[in-house]
């Protein structure tokens, strides 16, 4: 199962990486004679109301979603690791402060916080900046979970007999950290990364559906899904008739599903 998920994810990533070869314009070129067309040999998923190739936009969106959601997860895990290790190694006011910050961040309804911080960005910001800001915010807001896990991991590792023996023999704290603590924490961090990446993919999709994610004309799976709104009120028949609008959903399902399968069961949300 895990091998199949890894292969699927690899294939999706390869498709996303080939986007710049298939659609060098990032799916932004308008074909004004082909507005809102159904799938054809020229446009495998049809064109949108602005005459843009949906297939090219899907691949371009895959590149953005599949590259930046893991990047945001990596940022969150790195931040969480630094804060968790600091809170786990130190005692006293610093550990208490970091723990309290972690508790507060975990208690906050994070989608509200995300909206608040997203709203701080000026309206007229350039699309690439909005793209980076969206994913940077996801990364910056996701540190608390990994930090809590890493802090617990540090406490546990520091009580392990071989670490106690090392410390008793006077090993330098930096050596204990780099040679013993970090390698022991690596599987924890990898698990947290695999658990956060699909969560961030879904968060971006939610933001895109609300019109607050990656801004036009750039494509992401989130803002491509927004097109479904136009057929949603017309009922199931209209949705089936426009089945090609579900293509970003298929991409999202396959990638998040693969990531959830790859994540250890203990950290799957």
């Amino acid at each position: 199962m895990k091998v199949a998920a890894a292969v699927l994810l690899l294939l999706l990533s390869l498709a996303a990486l080939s986007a710049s070869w298939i659609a060098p314009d990032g799916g932004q070129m308008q074909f004004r004679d082909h507005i809102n067309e159904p799938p054809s040999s020229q446009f495998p998923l049809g064109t949108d109301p602005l005459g843009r190739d949906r297939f090219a936009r899907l691949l371009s969106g895959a590149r953005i979603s599949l590259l930046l959601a893991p990047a945001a997860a990596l940022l969150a895990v790195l931040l969480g690791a630094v804060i968790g290790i600091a809170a786990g190694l130190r005692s006293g006011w610093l550990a208490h402060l970091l723990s309290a910050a972690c508790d507060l961040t975990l208690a906050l309804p994070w989608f509200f916080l995300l909206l608040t911080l997203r709203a701080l960005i000026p309206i007229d910001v350039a699309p690439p900046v909005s793209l980076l800001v969206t994913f940077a915010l996801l990364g910056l807001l996701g540190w608390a979970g990994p930090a809590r896990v890493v802090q617990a991991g540090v406490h546990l590792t520091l009580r392990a007999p071989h670490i106690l023996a090392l410390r008793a023999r006077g090993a330098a704290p930096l050596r204990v950290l780099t040679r013993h603590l970090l390698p022991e924490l690596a599987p924890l961090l990898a698990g947290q990364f695999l658990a956060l990446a699909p969560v961030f993919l879904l968060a971006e999709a939610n933001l895109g559906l609300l019109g607050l994610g990656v801004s036009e004309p750039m494509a992401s799976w989130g803002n491509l899904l927004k097109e479904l709104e136009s057929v949603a009120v017309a009922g199931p028949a209209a949705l089936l008739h426009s089945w090609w609008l579900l293509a970003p959903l298929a991409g999202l399902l396959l990638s998040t599903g693969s990531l959830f399968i790859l994540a250890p069961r203990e950290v799957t949300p």
Partner: protein
Amino acid sequence: MSLVWRLLATLAAGAILTALLVRTAPGYGSNERDLDIRRNGPASSQPSLPWWYSREFHAPIHQLVAQRAMPTALAVTGGLALAWLISLASALASTRWPSRTLENGAFAGAMLLQCLPAGLLALLLLVFGFRGALAVALALALALGPRVWQVSRAILAHAAASPCLLLARAQGFGPWRLIARRLLPLAAPELRALGAVSVTLAISLAIPLETILDVPGLGQLAWQAALSRDLPLLVQLMTLVTLVVVVAGELARSKSA
């Protein structure tokens, strides 16, 4: 830290954050008209509004919250109740009658639902003709149910393997008595903590669900505030929901203590 101190600290943090964000926000003290050179006429100047006033709705924030709180409260309560009812019942059933086939099927279903963004669940409900607060509650149950099921199943399975359960079984407790008298009380503290987490999640999910299903609740208000960069409204909404979450967490903790 006592509940009162936590509430006061949250309120103080919210107030400071509101003031800070309002003061440092781009375009503070000016409106869109002032920023747009084409519409920047002499009649466009507007007096600056107090911090408890919404820039977008031109109304006191407490009034807006009072108007919008009820649909959100109903939808979140309904969604949480539905999610917990189904999840706990199926988790108890899988503890009572373990079956690998059912377990794998339920796991696959839960995984599939977790791979769908909440906003998309709302859209799918819209496709099938669901509208209003009921649809929000249903979408919340679909989004939260799998997570609650997964964690509650693990909690109950762990509790079911404890020695006191084995002893009760050996003493001849019937299956329902075992669940009601031993299993649930044993797992209650962890289930309560999960309950507090599910409240936080439900409140967060209310934003995309209410927006897409067009329910005039606090979630939709937050989205409108975010679109129009109404920072005082957004920050005060966040403070309010944080207070609700802190109270829920404290209640769960105090019952567990």
